[in-house]
């Protein structure tokens, strides 16, 4: 394994019951690079992210993060990964600040960092409101704050800009965008936007890798067929 590689997948396969959701996916992602995972709903994008987040086990093949094989050495890489998924992972009855303080305690992060990320996502004024009283966009901004709170080295971003208006999108850009300098895996229903950010593209179709390579190498027909 090359030390500069953050992710190495070799023949990664995952089933849910009888259904194979990911089949024989292989790729390598270097530090600081961005992988865009494309595919229609149910293609296996979120499953891949959950495996990389150590929340799901691969059923065949291997997945290595920071040189550590999953799931055997998952405990070594937790804390180096930030997940921004479909669920905000925030308690609705607690305020944004209380949620972040809780996550800061889990990750042994100082409480100053909580204020720092709240300010970065523009949520300091509403930080003491219960999460259930916030708009979806505000919850998404808090979710971004939660995902980057512990300064992860790998960000797993599942539709990270959903529910964000353009202004909020710009606000979170330094935290989760290319400017963050963090290695990223991102999925998006907007393939052109994802391709613009990517160094490497994984196109999934029915759980199989229909294309792995640079964005420029992905021909328009393959891209169209992914969403057909």
């Amino acid at each position, binding site marked *: 394994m090359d030390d500069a590689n953050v992710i190495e997948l070799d023949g990664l396969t995952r089933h849910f019951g009888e259904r194979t959701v990911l089949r024989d996916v292989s790729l390598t992602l270097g530090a600081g690079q961005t992988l865009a995972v494309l595919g229609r709903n149910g293609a296996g994008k979120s499953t891949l992210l959950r495996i990389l987040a150590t929340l799901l086990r691969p059923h065949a093949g291997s997945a290595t993060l920071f040189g550590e094989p999953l799931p055997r050495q998952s405990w070594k890489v937790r804390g180096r990964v930030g997940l921004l998924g479909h669920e905000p992972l*925030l*308690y609705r009855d607690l305020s944004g600040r209380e949620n972040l303080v*809780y996550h800061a*305690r*889990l990750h042994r992060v100082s409480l100053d960092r909580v204020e720092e990320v709240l300010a970065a996502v523009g949520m300091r004024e509403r930080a003491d409101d219960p999460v259930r009283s916030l708009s979806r966009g505000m919850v998404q901004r808090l979710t971004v704050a939660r995902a980057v709170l512990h300064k992860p080295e790998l960000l797993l971003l599942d539709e990270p800009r959903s529910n964000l208006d353009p202004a909020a999108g710009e606000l979170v850009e330094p935290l989760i965008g290319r400017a963050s300098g963090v290695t990223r895996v991102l999925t998006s229903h907007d393939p052109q936007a994802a391709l613009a950010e990517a160094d490497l593209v994984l196109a999934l179709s029915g759980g199989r890798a229909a294309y792995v390579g640079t964005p420029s190498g992905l021909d328009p027909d393959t891209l169209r067929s992914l969403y057909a």
Partner: protein
Amino acid sequence: MRTASAILRKDLLVELRTLETIPSMWLLAVITYVIFHFGLNQDTVKGQLAAGVLTVTLLFAAMLAVNRLFVAEREQGGFDAFLLAPVDRTAMLYAKAGALFIFMVALELVAVPAFALLLDPPCLGHSLPALLLILLLADVAFAVIGTFVSAIAVHTRARDLIGPIIGLPLLLPALIATARGIGPLLVNGSSGSPSAKWLAVLALYDLINALLAIGLFDFLLEE
């Protein structure tokens, strides 16, 4: 322990905000004593009958908390958030068992006076320290086994059924020891001292279950 304390603090804060669990336990306990008061049609209950009424009611009220213990973790992504953190997974067991223990004590703060008021057992005041000692040991069993069972049940669709179906048989030895220990305290002329035998049984049961739960809990959080 810092992680367990963070989870426990969060759980108590959520309960304080929602008041979903403890008031329901209070209500169930009080209603059950009212039903016993009229159903038994006696001015006072004593001995083993009184102990059984007290203990079984507490056990059923505890099941409400057991069923709700992990609901927020499952429905609001708490499990994933916890599993993403570089922490010892047993911290979740300590925190949830701690929360359940506190819920049980809060339940008893209302349920024991309600029991005294509605079913008027003899010598309750005189035997109160011994009664509380037995209840605290029983609470440990309820907390440990309840947490373990709740962690199993929350992954199933029928979690409201699975909790009691698995939990009640596992809690039967604790129920027997608690009721047998309390029975002699609630009779006329009670010495007010708890039976060492039943205290030892409860303490041993607590210890065995705590060790089993610590050994097995990690596997319950696995996918």
